[in-house]
């Protein structure tokens, strides 16, 4: 596997590639929502990597090497020497439900040779939980799905996932990697602290939460946040909800919005009735440590020619602010700086939980490592 990374910013344009990689099959471009749709990008990338499909994913911040960037484009070209690459590009608007969309993707890649599935989806109007369960419904749980939802600088308004010069923003791109020679590592960790009693979800509808232990969830939240409740809804990102599963694994759910009138809270993922949940709060040092742990899980034995894709949550960035590069560094250092690193800050991460079932995460650092 060979990789080549070039970076764009408004002041200096694209960096020049060190080695041409004309045979690259795939270029992943992570870029700021305000700059990614410029029409000049694709022709340049197409010139450099004529054989490749170029996937554009909008972000709330980009990662290149050990650096955190904003309003830039990080393009990583990948030439798989032994692995077969198959790419599926779908418009989510064409499907009745996100589960159906997931099912369609699953059907396309339902092949015994499939080794890994990378999925990038728009992150403004799509239920990532249903998308992932739709895919798993067809391909089962043996093949890991990693990737994430696109970001838009924390605005939760309009994100972009597009292929080559096809445009559009409500898209999903799934990349199937086939063959025995591909080595895959992945890990996902949040690093948030739990507080307050464990409660049951007594009323909810998909990702809209009504009540916990028969009390209005929003009132409970405000009670426990005390004076910090005044910072809502802006501060909602700082206080996610943790779903504690029976087997000890946990899923973090970020608050996207609150409805003062209906006393409901909308999350960036489903909060099923009957689930056990607990409030969470940020802890800087543990968040950084969490990133390192995710990297540790994803670490391959011989990572010299590897590509590491980091998908971290926009919520982490909003909390850590100017210390956010510390978590990127933590991942970079865990791998000893070898190989190529790319990534972005997303509206949702996709990765298997520790029980092996791929799922949508919030507030995590998710690391996928590929090598041949």
């Amino acid at each position, binding site marked *: 596997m060979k990789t080549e990374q070039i970076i764009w910013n408004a002041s200096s344009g694209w960096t020049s590639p060190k080695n041409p990689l004309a045979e690259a099959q795939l270029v992943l471009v992570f870029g700021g929502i305000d700059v990614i749709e410029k029409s000049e990008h694709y022709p340049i990338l197409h010139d450099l990597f004529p054989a490749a499909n170029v996937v554009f994913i909008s972000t709330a911040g980009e990662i290149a090497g050990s650096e955190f960037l904003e309003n830039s484009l990080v393009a990583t070209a990948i030439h798989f020497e032994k692995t077969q690459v198959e790419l599926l590009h779908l418009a989510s608007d064409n499907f009745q439900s996100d589960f159906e969309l997931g099912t369609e993707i699953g059907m396309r890649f339902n092949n015994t040779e499939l080794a890994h599935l990378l999925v990038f989806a728009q992150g403004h109007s799509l239920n990532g939980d249903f998308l992932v369960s739709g895919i798993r419904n067809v391909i089962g749980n043996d093949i890991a799905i990693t990737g994430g939802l696109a970001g838009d600088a924390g605005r939760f308004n309009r994100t972009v996932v597009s292929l080559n010069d096809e445009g559009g923003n409500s898209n999903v791109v799934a990349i199937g990697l086939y063959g025995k020679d591909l080595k895959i590592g992945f890990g996902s960790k949040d690093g948030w602290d739990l*507080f*307050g009693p464990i409660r049951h979800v007594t009323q909810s509808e998909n990702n809209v939460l009504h009540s916990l232990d028969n009390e209005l969830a929003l009132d409970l939240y405000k009670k*426990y946040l005390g004076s910090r409740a005044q910072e809502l809804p802006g501060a909602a990102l700082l206080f996610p909800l943790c779903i504690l599963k029976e087997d000890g694994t946990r899923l973090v759910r970020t608050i996207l919005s609150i409805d003062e009138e209906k006393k409901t809270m909308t999350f960036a993922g489903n909060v099923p009735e009957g689930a056990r949940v607990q409030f969470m709060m940020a802890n800087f040092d543990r968040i950084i440590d969490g990133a390192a742990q995710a990297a540790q899980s994803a670490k391959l034995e011989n990572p010299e020619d590897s590509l590491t894709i980091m998908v971290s949550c926009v919520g982490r960035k909003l909390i850590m602010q100017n210390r956010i590069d510390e978590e990127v560094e933590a991942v970079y250092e865990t791998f000893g700086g070898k190989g190529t690193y790319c990534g972005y800050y997303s509206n949702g991460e996709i990765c298997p939980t520790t029980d092996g079932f791929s799922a949508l995460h919030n507030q995590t650092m998710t690391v996928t490592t590929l090598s041949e």
Partner: protein
Amino acid sequence: MLPENLHPLLKRQLKRSFGEDIPVHPGFEKFLQGIHQSYIHYDSNLELIERAMKLSGEELFQKNALLAEESERQAQLIDTIKKSIQELSPNHDSVEEHSVAKIIEILNESIHERKSFERRLEESREKAEAALETRKLFLANISHEIRTPINAIFGMSEVLEDTPLNQEQKDYLHAIQSSSESLMVIVNDILDMAKLESGKFQIEELPFNLKDTLTAIHRGLSLRAEEKGISFQLRVAEAVPTWVKGDPTRLKQIITNLVSNAIKFTEEGTVDLIVDPAGTHSSELKFEVRDSGIGIEEHKLATIFEYFVQEDSSITRRYGGTGLGLAISKSLAEQLKGQLICESQKGKGSTFTLTLPLPETEQTTREKQFIIPSLTGARILIVEDNALNRFLAVTVLSKANATIFVAENGEEALNILRNEEVDVVLMDIQMPVMDGMKATEHIRNTLHLSVPILALTANALQSEREKCLELGMNDYITKPYNPDDLILKIHHFVHTQHHRPMSQQLEQVNLENLLKLISGSNAYAKTITEKFVHQIHSEFDHLQEYARSNEMDFCEHTAHKLIATFKLYGLNSIATTLEAIEHAARSKDEAQVLHGVNSIYHLKLEIIAQINQAVDALSQTA
């Protein structure tokens, strides 16, 4: 210089270590900011955690208070249960403090005891019911058995009456006759009761002459009243219709019972039967039986309609009777959708009022003619194992000038039928060696005879009748029978047969009509014949089925369809029979239809064979 906004704890530590002289280093500034931010962050987290602890503590406290309250309630509840248990089973040692397990154990024990008690109760109830059922069944069976000898006594007395007797012998004979009549009433009462109780009672609904029926009742019972020296009058209001629709037998039974009782319990004075419309607008009629007899005490009125209840047990000794009559009458009245009530005053007489729906109807044309025909020349085979019954039948039929053959069982009957041609077979059902059902099967299937078979059944059960007809019998008569009815029935079959021979001889198939119709094409004749043969095959079966299930409309239709076919093949006698069937079916004469169908059904295969043969011959000559 120290930055102004540093966290106080960090500031203090810095002062302790460095005093006011903070090392000037670009990395050190960043280092301080990192630690400062962590301090601030931990403070903020600590505040949240402390708040969460406080709130959780409060929540816990409230939940504990709720639990304590709930637990107190539970304890009270358990106390109440304990008290109830001690009341329920005082012999239990006092239940341990709050021991729910013990309470459950005791409750389970009680439930178990109670269930086993209920089971025993249920078992005894079942046993008692079974015993009662057995007794009733026994009673019914015995009564049934008694009917046969009574029937013989009746018959024989009638025969005896026709012989020269002196006055003394005549008196004895009348005594025998009246005793056996009483016996028959009792036996019939018991059988009626059994039928009513088991719900097997069948109610008829047919047009009958009400006034004739009432007159007959009056005539029948006047003699008894006269003998006692009381007047018995029948008064029928003008508004009462002559022809009504209902069950004449049951009406007669109820009124006869009421009038007989009235006569029985009246020593002097009058008994009146008064018939009026029950209301101006309804089709109900009111039958009042008034007497000036002993009357009934008021407190006994409520029970007189119960089985085995007479007003006083002394009455049974004095007046006799089974105590079933009124109960049966009331039950019958209710089955007929009417009612029977009684008003009475002790010593002043009683009035029984029967109200029944008897809608007026048109006079039926099928009024019975009571001219007993002669059976002169008719050859009748009597198959009956019981010597008395056999003798009775022989006597009755000999008097009608019939020629009699006698068999004691089915096998003997078959032997006779192999050698003799008879017009009607009277077939008992229950017989040793070979019963009537089996014999009928042989007659139809082995001997291929279509001779009319008349079943003599003791059980007037619908199911048995149906079975008889299914096996190919033509009709049935229930024992004990009225000799006139028997003669009428036999006459009907003999009469029919004389006009239309029962065992039809199949005439020669004639293809002339067919060939004319299809302009002489032999090949086509063959094709069309295949179709007809198929039609005959299935339609004959249908016809028989419809005839047996009394579906007259279908019979009419099917018979009609077949007529043309048989005329086409020159089988005119079959066509004539089918015409008769069609006609009988149109006038809903079910017995006649079945009879007609039975007379040709067994010819089916022969007909088909003949037609095929004729058509085959045709193609060979061509």
